[in-house]
Every structure is written in C-alpha cells, then in structure tokens.
C-alpha cells in the first residue's frame, strides 16, 4: 500500500501538481473503499429497502399460508365467474376459466419461489466450491477451473438453459436445474475474484506462514471474509433465476398447462390481453416486483 502511495505521489509531482493531497492521490489509485461517500443509512431506515423486504415477506408468507386459505387448490374453476375484473371477481379478478387469480398467484408464488430457491441452491452449490478452489488455491487449479468457467460462460445463458431442458425434458424441476446451471458460472467467477482479493491480504500470508493447510485457509479465513459479498451477489442472482425460470415457463417449456407458475400464468393471460388484461398483468407485476425487490435488497446489502 505504501509503495503505491509513493508511486502516486511521484506521478502527481511529475504532472506538475505541487501539493499532492491525500484525496487526489487516492483518486488516481482509484481506491473505492476510501473515496468520499456518505455513510449508508441502516437498511431498515431506507424506505425502498423496507418496501422490498415487506414485499418479499408478503410473498413468502402468502405462499406459506395459501394451502390453509384456499385448500381447494389453484385449479378450482367456476365457469359462471369467468373473466371478472378485480373487485367483482375477488381481489385480483378471475381468469377465463373462472379461477381466482389471487389464489392462483399465491399458489404460484410457492412454485415460483421454490423453483428460484432450488435454482439458486444449485448455482451456489456448484459455483461456491469451484470459485473458492480457484481463488484460494490459484495456480494450475485456478487456470483449469477458470477455463472451464469461461467455456461455460461462452454459451448464452438462455441457450444453455434450453439445452439442459432438451436433455432433461420439461417440468418445473428441469427448469430449476437449467436456470441453476446457467447461473452457476457467473457465481463461481465472483467467488473466485473475492477469494483472490482476500488471499492477497497479509493475514493470509501470516496463516500460510504458521503452516495452515490450503483447505483451512479457504474455509476458515477466506470464506467467512467473503461471505457478505457472496450473500449480496446471491440475492441479485435470485432475481435473475426467478426471471429466467419464469421466462422458460412463459415459453411453455416448464410446467404443464394450467400450473399457476407466474411465467406460465403470464403466457396464458396473454391470449386474453384485450378482453381481460388483469389475467396477464397480475402475475407479470408480481414477478416484476419480486425480481426488483431481490435486486434492491442485493444492492443495498452490498452497500452496507
């Protein structure tokens, strides 16, 4: 660090700047942690973050309680109540088969969230060990793992997901696997970058000096220090997997017809866009808000 400051000072002097101030020096070095920025407010005092948390909590609670609220399930039809707008047709209206959209939305939340969680678990489960190994071991392991990740990333994520679906067949679990696999590579890359950064710290050098094994260094020193950054990125990844999972369902590659998964509901409602716009709008907005909430939360967590 001191060497860098010296370099920057020398550089500024050569440029003819007489008094290299600390701020100016830092700007040249682009040290982000030290750049002047107001301290973030606590998460719970930011209205946007609170809204995001409230929305996600609402979705999770709704998904948890809906089997008790509507035990007849998301398929209960009443054809005499088809395509009623919000109000006359319950809180969010009914679809063309007279099914209550609010009930379907909450049942669908179960499917959509469960799909997202499974996909995220797969992405983290694959990306974390790979990235950690590459970042903390370095050398040949790093080279091999990163070339693998590069090849993986070379496929457009949607194409990769479609390929996986073609092999596994259709279904919500296949969608979760397909999206999870597509999300694993970028996650591994972030883990590796974070791990490498931490590995350069003097305390890791110290740990190596006292004879700690690479595994111990990775798990006891690098992982705990990397955890906040990784959690942040996982929250943002959650938004990504939800969106792409719903996208695959929208294309009809996932759930069978009538499943209240949000992407599938959106696709179904599209045919009735003129006659009953709420059928498509409700799941579409729910998806948008959920992805937005996950992204906001990830972003705000990252600033902490």
């Amino acid at each position, binding site marked *: 660090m001191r060497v860098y400051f010296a370099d920057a000072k020398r550089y500024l002097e050569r440029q003819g700047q007489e008094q290299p101030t600390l701020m100016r020096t830092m700007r040249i070095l682009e040290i982000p942690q030290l750049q002047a920025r107001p301290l973030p407010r606590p998460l719970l005092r930011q209205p946007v973050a609170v809204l995001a948390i409230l929305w996600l909590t609402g979705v999770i609670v709704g998904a948890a309680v809906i089997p008790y609220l509507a035990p007849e399930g998301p*398929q209960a*039809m009443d054809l005499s109540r088809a395509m009623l707008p919000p109000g006359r047709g319950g809180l969010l209206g009914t679809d063309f088969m007279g099914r209550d959209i609010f009930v379907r939305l909450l049942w669908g939340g179960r499917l959509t969230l469960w799909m997202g969680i499974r996909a995220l678990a797969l992405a983290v489960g694959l990306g974390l060990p790979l990235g950690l190994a590459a970042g903390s071991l370095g050398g040949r392991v790093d080279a091999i793992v990163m070339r693998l990740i590069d090849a993986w990333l070379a496929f457009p994520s949607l194409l990769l997901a479609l390929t996986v679906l073609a092999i596994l067949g*259709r279904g919500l679990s296949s969608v979760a696997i397909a999206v999870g696999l597509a999300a694993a590579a970028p996650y591994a890359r972030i883990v590796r970058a974070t791990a490498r950064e931490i590995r350069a710290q003097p305390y890791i050098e110290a740990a190596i000096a006292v004879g700690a094994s690479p595994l111990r260094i990775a798990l006891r020193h690098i992982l705990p220090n990397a955890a906040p950054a990784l959690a942040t990125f996982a929250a943002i990844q959650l938004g990504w997997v939800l969106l792409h999972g719903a996208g695959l369902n929208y294309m*009809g590659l996932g759930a*069978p017809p009538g499943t209240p998964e949000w992407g599938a509901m959106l696709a179904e409602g599209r045919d009735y866009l*003129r*006659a009953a716009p709420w059928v498509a709008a409700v799941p579409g907005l729910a998806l948008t808000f959920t992805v937005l909430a996950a992204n906001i939360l990830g972003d705000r967590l990252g600033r902490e």
Partner: protein
Amino acid sequence: MRRLLLFLLLAAALATGCTPRSEGRIVYGLTLNPTGIDPHINASSELGIPLTSVYDTLVYQDPQTGGFVPGLAERWEVSADGQVYTFYLRRGVKFHDGTPFNAEAVRFNLERITNPDLASQKARFMLGPFERAEVVDEYTIRIVMSEPYAPLLDSLSQVYLAMASPAAIQKWGLEYQLHQTGTGPFIFAEFVPGDHLTLRPNPDYAWGPRVYQHKTAQLAEIEFRFFTDAATRAPALESGEADVMGEVPPLDAVRLQKNPNFRIQPVPIPGLSLVYFMNVTRPPLDDLRVRQALIYGTDRQVIVSTVFQGTSPVACGPLTAVTFGYDPAVCQFYPYDPSRAATLLEEAGWKDTDGDGIRDRNGQPLTLDLYLMGWGYLPDIVQLMASQWAQLGINVNMQKVTYPEALQIAKDGTHHLLPFSSSGTDPHILRTFFYSQARFNWSKVNDPELDGWLDEAARLFDRNQRAALYSRIQNRIMEQALVIPIRDYVNLNGVNNRVQGLRFDAQGWFPWLIDVTVQQ
C-alpha cells in the same frame, strides 16, 4: 340483408366497369410461417392461401354442390373399371413465364410429384394408387391408377396438385419455391421468407373456372404478411396493418363482430374434427368401458362455449359436419353423462378404495398420460378436460410436446391420449387415421373389418354408396370409442369491411382472391 347488399354492390360493379381493371391493394394476414411453400412438396395449409390464386388445377370443386367443374381440363372421362382417367385440356392457356400449358406439362407435374426424390409430404399421398400419366396428344392426358381410386378428382382440385410451369421448375431447380410459376389469376411477384409474399394480377388470365365470378383479378396487389402470434392478429386488423386475417382468436372475433368497420367470416373446415385419439393398446384404455367413460365424462359443450365462445360446433365424431359423407347419427353417441361415466368405470373395476379422490384398481391409480401441442387452444381445452375428469376420479398427467415429439410418442405408443385435427373434403381422410397400417393411426386400432371398409370406400364411385359406407365407418369408430371428438374446426377470418367479395373454396382454407375488391 348482408347478402342482398353484397349482391347490389356486385351488380353496381358489373354495370359500371365492364373492361377488366385492377386497382387497390390489400394486406392479407397469414398465421403460420411455413418452412417450405412448394405445394408439390410441402403440406402446410397456409401455403395454399396465396398459392391457390397463383396456380390453376385441372378441376375445381363447387363448394355449394360438392361437384367438380372444369378447370384446366375442359372435360374428363373415367373408364368403367375406374382406373383410367382421361382429361381433355383447355387450349390457349399460358404459364406466367409465357410457356404453353399442355398435356406434356401435366405429365411433367405428376411425375415430379411422384418422384420419390422430391419427398412430397402431401401431394404424393393425395394421388393414392397413381401408376403413370400418358400423353395422348397435345391436349389430352391419361392418368392410369393401379386400382380404382374415387378421391382422385378431389385431389386434383387442390393446390397441392396444381399445374406448375415445367420450364420454371427446370430453370430454378431447388429454388423453385421462391419463383413459383403457374397459370393462375395472380403472378407470384416476390417472396421474402418470414417477411412477406406479394401477388400481382396476371393480365392474360382468361381461363378461370366458372366458380370464379370475375374474368381477371380485381386487385392490383396483395401482400401476405405473417402473424404467427395469435394475440397480434386482431390488433393488426384494427390498426389497419392488415385487411384480412385468418384464425382470429375467438374472444377477439366476438369483439370485432361488434365493430361496424369489421366483420368475421367464419368458415367451417371439412376434414377430421379436433379429436383426442385414445390408444387402445395401452391399459387402462384397452378396456372399451374406460374409453366410453372418458367421452361420457367430457362436457364438450362447456369446452366449446368457454374456449371458443360458441364459435365452433361441438364435434360428434371423427368428421366435421361439413365433410362429405358425415353421418349426423354419430351425435347420438355419448352425450355428456358423468353418472354413466362413473358407472362404466365402476364396472371396469376402477373404484376409489383408498379415499384419495382418484380411482384405483389392484393398487394402481387411474392415471392417464395426455399429450398436447401448442396449437388449436389445446392448452385451454385440456385444462377443462382434466378438471372434468378429476371430478370422476381420473388423474391426468399432462405434457406439452412439439409436433416431432408427438410423432415419436405416437410411434412408440407411450401415450394414452394424443390430439390431432386435419382438413380435407373427402372422407377418404379417415384412412389416414384409422387404417391399421396408417401413418397417423394414433389410436393404434387394428380392426380388419374397418380396414376392409376403408379400402372399399376408396374404390366406390357412386356418391350414395360411398356415403353409406363412410357412415358405417364413422359409427364403428364411435362404437369402439377410438377418439374423443372435441370441436369442428372453424376458421374465423377477420375482414376489414372495405374488402368485398372474399369467398373460400370447398376446403374452407383457400380464398378465391380473383373476386376480391376493395373500396378506397
């Protein structure tokens, strides 16, 4: 009232302009984006919409009478044994490239279609037991069949067996589909695959069949555009982006009908109604009672009124009501009767012993593998079917598949239920689906008696005898509960009211564009 108005308009048009003139242009919306549009090779119904007006056929079918009228053939004779057809061709007909139409051109076309190298998907099969074509003299051609084949005239009246210019086919080779050359009222002017196809009038046209009302094309240009996404069709009409649109979604059609600027022209399509084939070889559907229970347990009226807003009739049997030989007696089979369905299932041993709401037998739940494709509102239809069957204690595994996947499933026989629908004016279409060796025998039926009837019906030339035999065939199909008929196909054409004179041929799919006029 509308018909009277149309007649008056027509009379006015005839009175004012006797000299042939073409003016105005329209945009015609197609619903599929076919991968190939050579009618001799490809099977898509969509290709025939523009190409019916690019080509002429030897004969034409009158949609009113179902009889055949002269086209490129002035008259024809059929030998006593029904195996030799002699066609006397019209003289002075020229292809769009200026080459003459004659018996040699007919022979060339038929040999092109029957050449296995062409891998024809539809035209070849429509020719049935075709053996050879002989040129008798310049304007006489003889078609020899290896056995009597009654549907030949019907086949020859369709665009798939249209007469193309041999010179153009030889000139363009594999690229012919981009440069199609016929004798019809419109010239194939431009085709940019996936974007548009443009037709312009053929000024020399003077040999139209009498089913056409005009001698030459009335429009100066027709541009076909593709609207594969059903949700975009009505908005395209309303914004003026298109003047005619096929297959408008039922809900949009109901709305458009209330708009004074547009009309819906529903055209019932003859052929195989939308049916779910039941695989009779796979338990539990090997039991006739279970198959019958499924039909009794399906409230088709509700399906038609919910999904199609009542724009399509409920199908009673394998043929739609407008198909030649359709027997209305099949409507007596299987009215909606859930209690009858439940009784039949009980008799077959399917009872809900464990109280989970699903019937079972010997510990096996009553679960059916149902497949569907993305077209024809099947995703909506199957949801209603599944909910109706759930009340009977039948569990359904639904899976959406692509057409090639469906073909593979049908081949392997791993389905219980698989849907299809197809168009064709001749009831011979049933042979494609219910003959034991047929490619599309998705019920996996193997009934030697049915096979015999299907063979015999193709050899009969007397219309009454044929109809009687096809009636027996339809009744057998329904007695055996080989299919669950859902609805008769009706093409809902959305039309801007400035477009007049739009009529469709006997197939229901193909417009006679020569007569279309437009008000500015």
